[in-house]
């Protein structure tokens, strides 16, 4: 039976000091299959992949690749055995070209020592063309957008001609159009009999591309099966391990009072003529492709950048926002799209991060009143149920969902009236997502306003009272909750 499997993992365990990270897990990958590996944060997915790739040794169990039992000591050995991985964190060398990055360490040679650049560029060009990625292989990585860099990483993994390709959150940084191209590529690979291990928090992608699944929870194997035999709700239930009523929690209802009124907001090259009214108690969704100007709009609204034109009124009063502290004075709070890049101080503690935006309120003159600060921080940790050993824990060591809660705690302490959320559930597990939805609803219910940017259609549909669609920096539609469907949104945005 093992012979016709690409990958057969049985009984693998791994213990770290104080933590049983993996316990007796199984994983079976058939040729030609896209197999989703699902689980919340801390489920053991990363540990599993690290063991598979030879980064950690395993304590127990067997890994059989194409009928041969293996024990990799280095990632190199795993690659030689036909396993390649697309990393979640980008690891490209920014000052090398696309082609150089793809063939890093495997450059085609002339006379044994000299790198043959024309040959390398030609091969890279052919590869990118085959994958339908429109990227010039001679460009420096630095000149590419984040999404394009991720595509190059994908191309790099595919260039190794592996039989097993591991994709760890491959779509977290790329736009919808690129996702489609990635999926085309995956279908091409599976038609050649290769297997893909697909890790993603985005359930809709799993149901779109995967044919089978395996679920881990708390380091243990929970179950596996065919995607065609399970529905979204069932999968979420398996991941969470609790009975789940609804994926989204929506309890707020907007009333008529306008809390934020924006007219003719424009910034050259980014967005034009954005006008909207946010009502009290409302969650306003913004849907649009990556690069459609949605995040740039938030940046200008919050005073990080300056708009070329446009007016803002908050609770009926015209306001000028020139810097973030002005926005905060007017009750705005911004949770940015990229937690690690612009949200958190990763080197700081939970306390540092939560109190960062509201320090003036706990200061006597220049000095921080540590008692007051600690009580505020403790309140937020309890409120959002941040899972952390202490408030002195360095934020880098928390999971994505807990990190996002830390950012929310920071902003809630500034007592905002209007919350601007940019992709608030990106890269966090299903359980934390639900908590996030609950918080948004509760916040809006208190008569506050929420604007939420999201690329996930079900989330926008599930949470928004109205949906604003962005395309190429322009508003192309404002749809009521009742009338919005997946088709209309995708159609308008593309």
């Amino acid at each position: 039976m093992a012979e016709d499997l690409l990958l057969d993992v049985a009984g693998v365990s791994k213990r770290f000091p104080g933590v049983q990270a993996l316990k007796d897990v199984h994983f079976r990958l058939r040729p030609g299959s896209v197999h989703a590996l699902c689980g919340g944060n801390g489920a053991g997915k990363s540990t599993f992949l690290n063991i598979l790739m030879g980064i950690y040794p395993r304590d127990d169990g067997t890994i059989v690749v194409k009928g041969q039992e293996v024990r990799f000591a280095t990632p190199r050995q795993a690659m030689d055995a036909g396993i390649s991985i697309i990393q979640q964190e980008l690891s490209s060398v920014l000052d090398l070209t696309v082609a150089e990055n793809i063939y890093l360490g495997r450059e085609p040679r002339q006379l044994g020592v000299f790198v043959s650049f024309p040959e390398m560029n030609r091969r890279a060009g052919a590869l990118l063309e085959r994958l339908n990625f429109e990227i010039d292989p001679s460009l420096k990585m630095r000149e590419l957008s984040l999404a394009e860099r991720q595509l190059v990483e994908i191309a790099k993994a595919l260039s190794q001609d592996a039989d097993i390709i591991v994709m760890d959150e491959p779509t977290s940084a790329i736009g919808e159009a690129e996702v489609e191209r990635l999926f085309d590529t995956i279908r091409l690979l599976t038609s050649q009999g290769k297997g893909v291990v697909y890790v993603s928090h985005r359930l809709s992608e799993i149901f779109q591309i995967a044919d089978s699944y395996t679920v881990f929870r708390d380091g243990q194997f929970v179950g596996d099966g065919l995607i065609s035999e399970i529905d979204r709700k069932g999968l979420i239930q398996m991941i969470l391990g609790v009975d789940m009523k609804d994926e989204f929690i929506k309890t707020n209802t907007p009333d008529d009072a306008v809390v934020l009124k924006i007219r003719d907001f424009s910034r050259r090259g980014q967005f034009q003529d954005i006008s909207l009214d946010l009502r009290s108690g409302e969650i306003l969704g913004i849907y649009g492709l990556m690069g459609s100007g949605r995040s740039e709009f938030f940046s200008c609204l919050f005073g990080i950048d300056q708009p070329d034109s446009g007016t803002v009124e908050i609770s009926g009063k015209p306001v000028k926002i020139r810097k973030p502290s002005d926005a905060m004075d007017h009750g705005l709070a911004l949770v940015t799209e990229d937690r690690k890049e612009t949200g958190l101080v990763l080197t700081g503690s939970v306390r540092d991060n939560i109190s960062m935006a509201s320090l003036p309120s706990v200061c006597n003159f220049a000095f921080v009143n540590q008692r007051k600060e600690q009580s505020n921080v403790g309140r937020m940790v309890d409120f959002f149920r941040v899972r952390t050993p202490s408030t002195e824990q360095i934020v880098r060591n928390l999971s994505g969902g807990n990190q996002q809660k830390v950012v929310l705690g920071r902003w809630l302490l500034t007592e905002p009236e209007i919350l601007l959320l940019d992709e608030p559930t990106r890269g966090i597990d299903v359980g934390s997502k639900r908590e996030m939805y609950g918080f948004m609803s509760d916040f809006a219910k208190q008569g506050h306003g929420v604007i939420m940017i999201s690329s996930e259609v079900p989330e926008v549909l599930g949470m928004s009272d109205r949906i604003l669609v962005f395309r190429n920096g322009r508003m192309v539609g404002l749809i009521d909750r009742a009338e919005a469907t997946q088709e209309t949104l995708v159609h308008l945005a593309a």
Partner: protein
Amino acid sequence: MTTLPQEGGNRSSSSATTALQATLRTLSKYGIIVAFFVLCAVLAVVEENFLTANNLLNVLRQTSINGILAIGMTFVILTRGIDLSVGSVVALAGVVSATFATMDTRMQLVPETMPLVAIMLGIMAGMLTGAINGFLVSRFAVPAFVVTLGMLSAARGGTLLWTGGLPVPNLDPSYRWIGDGVIQVGNVWMLMAVLFVVLGYVGIRWLNAAERRSNGALGASASGTRKLTALAVSAVVSAALAFGLAQALPAIGIGQTHLVFTESATGEEAGAFAVDVTDDELDFFAEQEGGPRRRVSVDWAAEGQPPAPEAIVTAVLERIEVVDPETVMLDFDGLLVPLTAVEGLESSLDLRLGQVGLPVPAILFVLIFLAAWVVLTRTRYGRYVYAVGGNEKSAKTSGINTKLIILSVYVISGALAAVGGMVLAARTGSALTQAGVAYELDAIAAVVIGGTSLAGGVGTVVGTFFGALIIGVMTNGLQLLGVDAYYQQVIKGIIIVIAVMLDPSRRQRE
């Protein structure tokens, strides 16, 4: 992430391991301090001259300037920057202030010396160069390395231009006090008080932390009774330590006896003794207290026991021209003994045992360190420095004026480099245009050894304090051991790199 239920019998052993783990964590957190004391202990064993009053005071003097520079550097490196210009600012601030404090009429900018004004102007010169650095870095996003490299050259040039390339000699004695003065910091009682404050504070902090660990509550603090107990214990311990030290110090040779003697009321005109004493310090407060006073230090460390009263008198007489011995009094903390009554010296001397004198630069270093510690850990500004260094974009989004913070750390670094420069000039007695060359390297080394990350956002000024001390003690130790000067540099370089490689706090971060 689930922990398996423990068997009942394992409980006590597991809590013991937790305590051990916690202790090890604490130790590795303060690894730099442990390393410092280990280094000192090793040197004390292998080199008998290490643990002597003269030598330790020397180390303190030498370390102080680098330490003051390194504290400024810590602020800059915490924001992910670097300040390569501090060595040149040392020279610039030195000559700028010296031209207001020199008694050499050719170099004077104004016809009289104005020590306080000179110090202010020196600090302003440092702040100005720092402001230029900070402005360029924060406003135009030029890499700090490049900006301060430019300033390294420009400030050195400015130094040469200011004096026409000449040194500024013959500085006013009260200006020189900041470089070579000594302050009596107290006796056994003050030592006890300081120990009590430090131990009591650490004890309560430790109790609070233990409380947090044991019941997991966020921000819990220990109960009042336990705090009182901790205070009582630290009082007893500090008293024992202080008296123990007071007894032990003379035996191991730490201790310096200062005989302050004054002209008697019936004596000569004021100023009669105020000449020709070259290696002693003029009392800074002489003028306020009425009548010039001379402080003569008789160092008996090398002998291992106090000198005979006759020897003291001889030493005193050697240093000054006594017009009439009858008019000179020896002052033991207000107890006046006539110079002629030498029989009384021995018993009076006991009164002074355990009295500690510290060089002014060392006191400056410690005060600046304490101020920097308070600023970085207790103020909003300090938090913002860490936030900006950890993630500038996040800090900006949180409403922090990141440009102003970045500008300010270069101003701080410039000001402290200026203080270091003036201390150096005061110690040397003249401001040299080539002062401070390559000082930036030792300052950066102290910061890095102290565990501050060049990537910004991580580090402490406590680490820097001990980093500077380690460099100072290491240099001193190599000198005492008679290591060839060329080898000294090689060894120092190797030790710096190894220290950072082994730093546990750095490994934890990765």
